[in-house]
């Protein structure tokens, strides 16, 4: 199988398989969690659950001062990583073309050269995240195999994309095929690791914020 065939597989059957597992897996996981339900709360509400939910959605996106003061670099790196990944994923024109094809919606992108630079920063940030994790005894102790896997499958698409764009190591066609395959690997793995947080962050925050809001306490 040569690079062209690999690319054709990645754009054809490979993508179909990955998308099926991603969509089915994510919905399965989210539905399963939500279907656990909760016991009816019979007490009188002291505040608005919905308001609390909204507030927590925002509040947990912002750094908590007590945590930030302890490890500012790790927190900042977390933002760089996430924002960088978002920009590269959603504002690179060839990626927007993909969303347009899959979902029928598109939006303006950023210059490719800028995406290239942000991609490099994202890669460095992911490496920094690993270093932080390795250097912190408690975090290392808490890290499971699933966490290492989640880190690796997140790094691979950014790294291969960067290397394809800059013609590093391998011919472009082969690197592009590997890039698509690495994305497909991410899609397959995501529903079964902590990467489900790409969707569940919202439901989890809403749930906890709702509970707190209803009881009239801060969250």
């Amino acid at each position, binding site marked *: 199988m040569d690079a*062209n065939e690999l690319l054709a597989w990645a754009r054809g059957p490979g993508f179909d398989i990955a998308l099926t597992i991603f*969509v089915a897996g994510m*919905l399965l996981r989210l539905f399963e969690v939500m279907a656990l339900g909760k016991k009816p709360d019979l007490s009188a509400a002291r505040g608005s659950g919905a308001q609390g939910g909204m507030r927590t959605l925002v509040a947990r996106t912002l750094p908590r001062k007590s945590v930030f003061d302890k490890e500012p670099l790790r927190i900042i790196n977390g933002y760089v990583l996430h924002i960088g990944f978002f920009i590269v994923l959603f504002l690179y024109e*060839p990626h927007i*073309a993909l969303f347009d094809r899959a979902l029928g919606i598109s939006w303006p992108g950023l210059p490719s050269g800028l995406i290239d630079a942000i991609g490099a920063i994202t890669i460095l940030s992911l490496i920094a995240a690993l270093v932080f994790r390795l250097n912190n005894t408690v975090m290392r102790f808490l890290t499971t195999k699933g966490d290492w896997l989640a880190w690796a499958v997140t790094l691979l698409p950014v790294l291969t994309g960067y290397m394809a764009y800059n013609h590093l190591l391998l011919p472009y066609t082969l690197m592009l095929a590997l890039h698509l395959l690495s994305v497909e690997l991410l899609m397959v793995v995501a529903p079964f690791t902590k990467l489900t947080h790409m969707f569940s962050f919202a439901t989890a925050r809403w749930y906890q914020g709702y509970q707190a809001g209803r009881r009239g306490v801060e969250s």
Partner: protein
Amino acid sequence: MDDLSLGERLRQRGVSRRGFMKFCAATASMMALPPMMIPKIAAALEQAKRPSVIWLSFQECTGCTESLTRSHAPSIEGLIFDHISLDYHHTLQAASGDAAEHAREEAMQANWGEYLLVVDGSIPLGANGNYSAIAGISNLDMLKECAEGAAAIVSVGTCAAYGGLPMANPNPTDAVAVADIIDDKPIVNVPGCPPIPTVITGVLAHFLTFGRLPELDGLGRPKAFFGQSIHDRCYRRPFYERGQFAETFDDEGARKGWCLFKLGCKGPTTYNACATAKWNEGTSWPVEAGHGCIGCSEPRFWDAGSFYQALSVPFRDVGDTILAAGTAGLAVGAAAAVWNRKRKADAREKRDTITIKDLSKES
């Protein structure tokens, strides 16, 4: 072989020394050779005798020959080709029938081990090779016979190089490329549908100059012409970098000459010299004419999805996949929820009641 050297023949034709040196310089630069090679090319070509060339056309459309005959005739490239001894070529030779086949056999005998074999078109293996035959000889047999006495083989066009259109799904004739059959001769692939004329003549000029084939890449193509992608040499590349793309063939971006990536240009994955050598005497080339590259010089380009879809998008419409996968996910999720509830209920039912007495230290 003819007694006159190439230099003598060119002078007979009234080609000036200056014109000849210009061609040598152009050839050197096209093949990415250092300038100091120009005199060497000139000296070698000056002395070169006409090598015998046998051109076999198999499952093809004659587009490659059409391309070759437009090599800026009557430019010096045309003359160079005039001055190889093209002893057999269906379309271009005057002889027909038995006489044509005799010409081929004679040329092979007279130049055994030294002639250049040029092939365009793929070779059908299906039905014992009987899908395509010339003078009652199947393409497969003719290729094997002619390859045996050849010094080297040039596979011209994507069909000969990689199977091309005849090999596209579902490949009804079981077509293959030259290199799938012949493995004991040096083969150079000059893919393209059709290939650029100057690339064909450039490879022949290289063979005349150095007596061997040029340096090849992993797909058997001369690195000098196929070393860089269309995208990397494209004059529209700055628009790609700036994120300026034509969205349709007649929008403002298209009129301003912006990047054609979103309209399906395969420039990033296509390695060819179109962006620099151009077509029709250097007049223009597909991207300059406003149409994206279709990747015609790459293996299996015909089966690589729509010409009009960006390289980054999947082949199929994925709406139904999302719907089906979503339904399946919810169904399994519902089943899991039911099972979880059952486990919860079972646990509640079967649990042992623990009293304060069980927990007291005395017990």
